[in-house]
């Protein structure tokens, strides 16, 4: 009887491991294939000879992509949008969250409502686009930096965090004559480094990955982030003549290997930093889900 129970239990545990391993393979294989394909010869990829490792190893695709200056410009733009954009995000989020965490603040309820309401209801794509247009922000880098300056969701998370800090800290500082700005800068922010790191990371990933409004707001190819360039290379082949000729190397369309190389180049920074910052990713997900 004892052994019968054990078989059922073993099957169950086997199934658990099996599920996890299958999932991990399903997730990793496309990335591995893509990297290998981008490092193989075009003919090997076209004839589907690549299974796991590169076949007829060559870095030609990367050489071609790297020669195209546009991709470096786009990369620079993405880094600029990510770094400056994330700083703006953090500043706005803290400036919103701190007052909202103070119960003594008379405007707290009204302002809180103004923020939270936008999480549930909005004008939609068209009025937003027309507003940007009427403000004369089309085709400017400022538009990209400012349109997503703050997310009410992260403000709420940050506010909850500020609320969890003991009042006694503020009171003792106040006795020594500190005002709200000093208290925020000298006491609250230093106590918030872990959550700041997690939220900054989420904002930064959002910035790095974002494409839709960048595509809508920016026309000038020199200001586009790398995601939009990738979209043009792989998805709608909508690039200016010189770019197309730089990448196709005289052929009719972009070879598969070049497209794979372009995808790898775009995704690589995230994949590379990911294992090291993993704990922040998870803690960020948890503050969001548990405290909501």
């Amino acid at each position: 009887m004892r052994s019968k129970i054990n078989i059922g239990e073993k099957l169950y545990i086997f199934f658990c491991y099996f599920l996890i391993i299958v999932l991990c393979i399903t997730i990793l294989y496309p990335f591995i294939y893509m990297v290998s394909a981008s490092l193989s010869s075009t003919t090997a990829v076209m004839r589907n000879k690549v299974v796991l490792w590169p076949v007829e190893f060559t870095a030609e695709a990367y050489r071609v992509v790297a020669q195209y200056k546009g991709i470096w410009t786009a990369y620079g733009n993405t880094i600029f949008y990510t770094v400056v954009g994330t700083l703006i995000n953090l500043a706005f989020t803290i400036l919103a969250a701190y007052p909202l965490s103070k119960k003594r603040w008379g405007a707290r309820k009204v302002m809180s409502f103004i923020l939270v309401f936008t999480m549930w209801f909005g004008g939609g794509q068209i009025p937003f686009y027309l507003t940007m247009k009427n403000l004369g922000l089309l085709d400017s880098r400022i538009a990209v930096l400012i349109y997503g300056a703050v997310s009410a969701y992260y403000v709420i998370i940050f506010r909850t965090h500020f609320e969890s800090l003991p009042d006694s800290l503020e009171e003792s500082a106040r006795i020594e004559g500190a005002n709200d700005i000093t208290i925020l800068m000298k006491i609250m922010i230093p106590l918030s480094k872990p959550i700041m790191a997690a939220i900054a990371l989420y904002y930064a990933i959002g910035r790095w990955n974002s494409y839709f409004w960048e595509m809508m707001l920016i026309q000038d190819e020199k200001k586009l982030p790398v995601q939009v360039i990738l979209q043009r290379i792989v998805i709608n082949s909508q690039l200016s003549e010189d770019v197309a000729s730089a990448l196709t190397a005289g052929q009719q369309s972009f070879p598969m290997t070049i497209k794979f190389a372009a995808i790898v180049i775009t995704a690589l920074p995230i994949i590379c930093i990911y294992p090291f910052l993993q704990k922040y990713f998870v803690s960020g997900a948890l503050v969001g889900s548990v405290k909501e």
Partner: protein
Amino acid sequence: MKKGDRKRRILKEIKTNKFLYLMFLPVLIWYIIFAYVPMGGIAIAFQKYSVVKGIFGSKWVGLKNFQTLFADPYFFRLLKNTLLINIYGIIFGFPLPIILAIAFNEVKNKHFKKITQTISYLPYFISVVVVASMLIQFLSTEGVVNGVLQALGKEPIFFLQESKYFRFIYLASDIWQGVGFSAIIYLAALSGIPQEQYEAATVDGANKFQKMLYITIPCLIPTIVMMFIIRLGSVIAVGHEKIILLYNPLTYETADVFNSYVYRVGLQDMKYSYAQAVSLFQNVVGFIMVFAANKITRKLDGTTLW
């Protein structure tokens, strides 16, 4: 007398909390310009909007755009596609993170658990353009999937050109991206189960499967109910960002949802007023549903949950 009192109180409030007002001011300005001014732009749904005349000069047409919308056979296609993607998403996508969390919970080897969990979250952080690009590459006629089909002696399939495959491709990639990350919240709920419960069950002779059935799952039910209601609240919305990267006129029949239609008709064809009517319809229904979902979860949260 009373009026002066009130004035004095407001002045005192502003004076004591002046730095709080000062801090919040840029945020408030941002919200007015980038959230509430666009909300005013909803008005164009009731106009025959012209870019030249602007919102104050354009002609008002009442509910005409909505009449056109509800009479449009296209409307039902949009509604059907939006709902179906969500419903299939719930049926196939909703249980998976729960099962995965339970599976992770049974893993005792710390290193194995950490590595596999890290891998499982990874796709969530990959951009939608990269995911769509990968799909297009893998599913093209020369792609690896057709390569396998060919090796098996089958005819190549034009996956992204046939409408019958679209929902599957869309949802499978959604699940692929989100399953690990969505499991986090269930894992957090699982870590809150007191170990004594499991120990007591062991003493009673229960095996791991029975413990899962009688301890783990019941403990997860509040979280499951909560997540399910939140998910139902967004059943009228499918984001356009991945759709517009993957669809084409050949697959509109199954792929076109409200948001992608608004994008195409409004931002591409510049029929602003009509597209805004479509958008407003979706936003109002969506708002009511999210609001209801929120009320329900609040109620559950306050009384029975956590």
